């Protein structure tokens, strides 16, 4: 049996979700964003909630998330996505409202909006890409940058006497009464991707729960191979070795 005999529609077992359109993504080769975008699209498609899902894209690399998934979107000012999600969810209570944010957006400029949306127990999902660096602006230090890690604004490595410590904001929001589900996942292997997808699905399902139970927060520990100045494969290996120590994978809260 030849390859051509196998490649037939009836034998298809995996393809990108149909609501992920054919626009070429602007992300660098090997960027974790693409995988997470695909998971978000798969979950929305499988749940059949295209007509009642509103995504909020951040300022950062994922600013153009709205170009790739065919749902309604709003583009936030830097850090304000959780405030926006709050308003949309309250005005459209039967909708699935999610934010998609990076570490600079969520844990630096938008810390107040993140903490307060979580603390109010908003029935929203927050997808948080933590790659410990500012990607879009060219690889500057993020609040999540590891101690000693080099970036363009800490070229000799993050010095705690100068810049303080990496901010484990997932642990912070897990402490709040207003969150119901806080988990930390990754997308560097097929097995990890499957788990991350299940987490995103659970978060999205939580937003549609009939009673307001609280915010769902899915942190994806990710790579930024361009910003880290590594190949995609080496970036994955570096992440496993270094990032997972500071940001251990697994559920932080699930009630």
């Amino acid at each position, binding site marked *: 049996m030849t390859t051509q005999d196998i490649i037939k529609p009836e034998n298809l*077992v*995996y393809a990108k979700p149909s609501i992920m359109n054919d626009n070429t993504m602007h992300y660098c080769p090997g960027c974790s964003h693409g995988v997470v975008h695909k998971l978000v699209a798969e979950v929305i498609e499988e749940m059949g909630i295209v007509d009642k899902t509103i995504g909020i894209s951040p300022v950062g690399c994922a600013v153009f998330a709205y170009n790739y998934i065919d749902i309604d979107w709003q583009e936030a000012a830097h850090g304000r996505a959780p405030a926006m999600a709050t308003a949309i969810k309250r005005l459209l209570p039967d909708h699935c409202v999610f934010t998609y944010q990076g570490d600079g957006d969520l844990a630096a400029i938008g810390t107040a909006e993140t903490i307060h949306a979580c603390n109010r127990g908003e029935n929203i999902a927050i997808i948080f890409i933590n790659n410990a660096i500012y990607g879009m602006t060219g690889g500057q230090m993020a609040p999540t940058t590891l101690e000693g890690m080099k970036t363009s604004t800490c070229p000799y490595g993050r010095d705690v006497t100068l810049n303080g410590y990496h901010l484990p904001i997932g642990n912070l929001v897990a402490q709040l009464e207003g969150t119901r589900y806080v988990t930390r996942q990754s997308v560097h292997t097929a097995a990890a991707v499957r788990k991350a997808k299940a987490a995103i699905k659970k978060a999205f399902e939580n937003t549609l729960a009939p009673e307001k139970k609280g915010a769902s927060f899915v942190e994806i520990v990710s790579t930024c191979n361009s910003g880290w100045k590594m190949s*995609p*494969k080496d970036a994955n290996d570096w992440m496993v070795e270094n990032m997972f120590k500071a940001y251990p994978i697994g559920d932080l809260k699930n009630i």
Partner: protein
Amino acid sequence: MAKIKGAVEVNTNRCKGCELCVVACPAKVLGMSKQVNAKGYNYACMVNPDACIGCASCGIVCPDGCISVYKVKIEN
């Protein structure tokens, strides 16, 4: 006994040559093309098609959604 046989189809225009699918493939089916696509990337391709088991690991880790995976069961 039935044998599983898979095949991978790569959207070569969309592929950015990150090679994560090559790393993810447990059967060492995938490699990189010698040719480049319109954007100048060497794209992923099957270098050992007979070994493919259709597990879809390559597609699952692909950041650009360029991989479709097909699978058939062949009865002996």
